[in-house]
C-alpha cells in the first residue's frame, strides 16, 4: 500500500515517456496525454483517500526509494499537507491538459508540448512529495526546465526576452538554493527533512550548533519567495505569465507558485520550528527561526498585495491583469502564514488553515480565469480589454464561468473564495486581538486595501469584456464548445468547494496539523525511532 506514495510520481513520469513514444501520431498523443492527466488525478485521489483521509487510513506514509533506509536514501512522504497540495495540482493539471488539447494549435502541440507538460506535473508532484532537501532542489529543477521551454514556447522576440529573464533569475535562485541546502547539510549533517527536524529539536544529542540555520534558511526563503512570485521578487511574473501558452499559465499560477508557498511552510513549520535559536529581526526578538520568518514574510506579503493590486488595475489585457492579480493573491496566502509564524497554539493552526484554503481557492479561481482568457482570445483573436466587449450576449456560458471566477476572487459566498477571504480576515483580526500593535493593524488595513483593489480590477475586466455593445472583434466570434465544457467543469468545482465546504475545511485542518506536528512527521519517516540519530 505504501507504493501509493510513489504512484503519482510514476504516473507523471510514465506520462512523459508515453507522450514521447506516441509523438509520431498526433491524435494518439493528444488522447494519451489527456488520458494520463486523468489517470494522474485518479492516482492522487486513490493515494490521498487510502493513506490520508479514508476511514482506516494511517494519516501519513513514507516511501524509501530503492529500499534504502532513511536518512541514507531518498524518502518520499505523503502526509496531510502534501496530500492537500497534490489534490490541488491534480485538479488544475487535469483541467489544464484537457484544455490544452482543444486550445493549443495542432502543430504547436507536436513540438514537445505534451512531454513537457507532464514533465512540469512531474516536477510539481516530486516537490510536494519529497522528504529530502536536496531532492526538493532536483524537483525544482525538473519543474523549471519545463517552464523555461514553455515561457519561450511561441519563439517570438517578446517570448525569448521573457524566457531569458526567467532563466537567469531562476539560475541565480537555484545557485542560492544549493548554497542554502549545502550550508544546512554542513550544519546539521543530514539532508533528510525528518532527520534534520529531529536533530535541530535536540542539537546537543547530535552534537551540532544550530545557530547558522536562521541565516541559511533566509537564503532558501529568498528562493521560495522567488518561485512564489512575492514582492520584491515578483518582476518575472507578468512577462512569463503573458508569454507562456495560457493553459500552461493556468498551471504556473495555479500550481507551481504554490510549490514556493508549500516549501516555505514545510521548511519552517515542519523542519526548523523545533530549533531554539535566539533571533532578532526588525526589532522583533524571538527564540526560533519562525520569529525570523514572521516579520519578513508579513512585509513581503503586504508589499505583494499592494503591488499586485495596483499593477492589476492598470493593465490593459486580461492575462496581464490576472498575472498581477496572482502577485497580489499570493500575498493573501503568505500573510496568514506569517501570522501563523508569529503566533502559537490554536491561532497558528487556524492561520495555516486560512493560508491553505486561500491557496486552494486561488489555484482553482485563477486557473479558471486564465483558461477563460484563453477561450476569449481563441474566439475573438485579442485579449485587450478595450477591444473586447459584449461577450455576455455572445456566449452566456463563457460569461457565466468567468463570472464565477471573478466572484470567487472577490470573495462572495457561497464560492470557494468567500471562505478564503473570510478566514484570512478572521485570522488577521484575531492576531490584532492577541497582540495589539501597529504591525497587525497595518497588515489588516493592507488586506482591506487589497480586497478593494481586487473588486476594482475584476469589475473592470467584467464590464469591459462582457457588458456593453459588441465590438467588431466579438461580432461573429464563436466560442469552442469543448473549451466551454472544461471551463464549466472547473467553475462547478469552485462552486462545489464553497457549497460543500465542510469536508474541504477538515482536509485543510488535517493539512495544517500535518505541517506543525513535527513528531508525527519524524515518526512516519523513522517508524522504529531511527536509532542512528
Amino acid at each position, binding site marked *: 500500500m505504501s*507504493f501509493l506514495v510513489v504512484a503519482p510520481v*510514476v504516473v507523471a513520469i510514465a506520462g512523459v*515517456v508515453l507522450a514521447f513514444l506516441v509523438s509520431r501520431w498526433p491524435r494518439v498523443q493528444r488522447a494519451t496525454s489527456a488520458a494520463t492527466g486523468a489517470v494522474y488525478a485518479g492516482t492522487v485521489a486513490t493515494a490521498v483517500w487510502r493513506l490520508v483521509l479514508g476511514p482506516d487510513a494511517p494519516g501519513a506514509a513514507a516511501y524509501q526509494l*530503492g529500499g534504502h533506509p532513511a536518512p541514507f536514501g531518498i524518502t518520499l512522504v505523503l502526509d496531510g499537507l502534501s496530500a492537500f497540495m497534490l489534490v490541488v495540482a491534480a485538479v488544475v493539471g487535469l483541467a489544464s491538459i484537457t484544455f490544452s488539447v482543444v486550445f493549443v494549435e495542432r502543430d504547436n502541440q507536436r513540438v514537445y508540448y505534451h512531454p513537457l507538460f507532464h514533465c512540469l506535473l512531474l516536477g510539481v508532484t516530486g516537490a510536494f512529495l519529497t522528504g529530502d532537501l536536496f531532492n526538493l532542489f532536483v524537483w525544482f529543477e525538473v519543474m523549471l526546465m519545463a517552464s523555461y521551454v514553455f515561457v519561450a514556447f511561441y519563439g517570438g522576440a517578446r517570448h525569448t526576452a521573457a524566457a531569458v529573464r526567467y532563466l537567469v533569475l531562476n539560475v541565480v535562485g537555484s545557485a542560492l538554493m544549493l548554497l542554502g541546502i549545502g550550508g544546512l547539510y554542513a550544519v546539521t549533517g543530514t539532508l533528510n527533512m525528518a532527520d534534520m527536524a529531529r536533530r535541530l529539536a535536540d542539537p546537543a544529542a547530535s552534537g551540532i550548533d544550530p545557530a547558522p540555520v536562521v541565516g541559511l534558511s533566509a537564503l532558501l526563503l529568498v528562493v521560495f519567495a522567488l518561485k512564489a512570485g512575492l514582492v520584491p521578487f515578483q518582476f518575472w511574473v507578468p512577462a512569463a505569465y503573458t508569454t507562456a501558452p495560457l493553459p500552461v499559465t493556468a498551471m504556473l499560477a495555479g500550481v507551481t507558485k504554490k510549490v514556493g508557498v508549500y516549501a516555505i511552510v514545510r521548511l519552517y513549520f515542519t523542519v526548523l520550528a523545533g530549533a531554539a535559536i535566539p533571533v532578532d529581526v526588525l526589532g522583533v526578538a524571538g527564540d526560533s527561526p519562525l520569529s525570523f520568518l514572521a516579520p519578513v514574510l508579513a512585509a513581503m506579503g503586504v508589499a505583494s498585495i499592494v503591488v499586485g493590486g495596483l499593477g492589476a488595475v492598470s493593465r490593459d489585457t486580461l492575462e496581464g491583469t490576472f498575472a498581477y492579480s496572482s502577485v497580489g493573491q499570493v500575498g493573501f496566502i503568505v500573510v496568514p502564514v506569517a501570522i501563523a509564524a508569529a503566533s502559537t497554539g490554536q491561532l497558528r493552526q487556524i492561520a495555516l488553515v486560512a493560508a491553505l484554503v486561500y491557496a486552494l481557492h486561488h489555484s482553482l479561481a485563477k486557473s479558471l480565469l486564465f483558461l477563460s482568457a484563453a477561450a476569449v482570445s481563441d474566439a475573438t483573436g485579442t485579449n485587450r480589454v478595450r477591444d473586447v466587449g459584449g461577450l455576455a450576449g455572445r456566449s452566456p456560458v463563457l460569461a457565466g464561468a468567468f463570472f464565477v471566477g471573478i466572484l470567487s476572487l472577490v470573495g462572495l459566498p457561497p464560492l470557494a473564495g468567500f471562505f478564503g477571504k473570510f478566514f484570512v480576515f478572521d485570522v488577521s483580526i484575531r492576531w490584532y486581538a492577541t497582540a495589539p500593535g501597529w504591525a497587525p493593524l497595518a497588515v489588516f488595513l493592507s488586506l482591506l486595501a487589497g480586497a478593494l483593489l481586487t473588486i476594482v480590477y475584476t469589475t473592470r475586466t467584467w464590464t469591459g469584456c462582457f457588458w456593453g455593445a459588441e465590438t467588431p472583434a466579438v461580432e461573429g466570434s464563436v466560442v469552442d464548445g469543448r473549451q466551454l465544457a472544461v471551463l464549466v467543469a472547473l467553475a462547478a468545482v469552485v462552486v462545489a468547494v464553497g457549497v460543500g465546504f465542510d469536508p474541504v475545511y477538515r482536509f485543510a485542518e488535517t493539512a495544517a496539523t500535518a505541517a506543525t506536528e513535527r513528531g508525527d512527521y519524524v515518526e512516519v519517516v523513522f517508524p522504529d525511532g531511527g536509532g542512528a540519530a
Partner: protein
Amino acid sequence: MKTTARIAVPIILVLAVSLFFQGHNLPGGGFIGGVLTTTAFVLVYVAYGLDYLEAGVLDREVDPGTGIFEHRSVTAYRRTFVLGLTIVVGSGLAGLLLGGSFLAQDYVILHDVPIYHEVELASALVFDLGVYLVVVGGLLTILSVVGAE
C-alpha cells in the same frame, strides 16, 4: 585536426565505456560516460563536418535539401533519447514488479568466467544504460541542431 580526432576518438570512446561499466560502485556512470561519448562525436563533427557520420561512416546518401530536424542522424539521436528514457522508467518499475520497491537494485557475481574470472552483474547497469542513452541522445540532438545554424 583530423589527425588528432583519429587518435583521440577511439581513446575517448574506450574511456567512456569503461567509466560507464564501473559506474554503479566506483566514480563514473551513465551520465559521465554519455558526456564523454558525446565529446567523441563532437570531435568527429568538428573535424569532418555534420554529414560525415552518414556519408563517410554509414555510406548513406545525405539529402542536403532537408532541414536539420529531418536530418537522419538527428532523428536517430531523438529516438535514442526516448529509448533511454523508456529504459530508465522501465528499470525503475522492474524493481517494483520483482517485489522490491521503485528503483530497487540488485546484483549477481558470476564466477569462473573465462579471462575475467569474476564478473559482477548489477541491475543498476540497466538504469545506467538508460541514463547513458538519454545523455547521448539529448546532447547530440542539441549539439547538431545548434551546430547546424
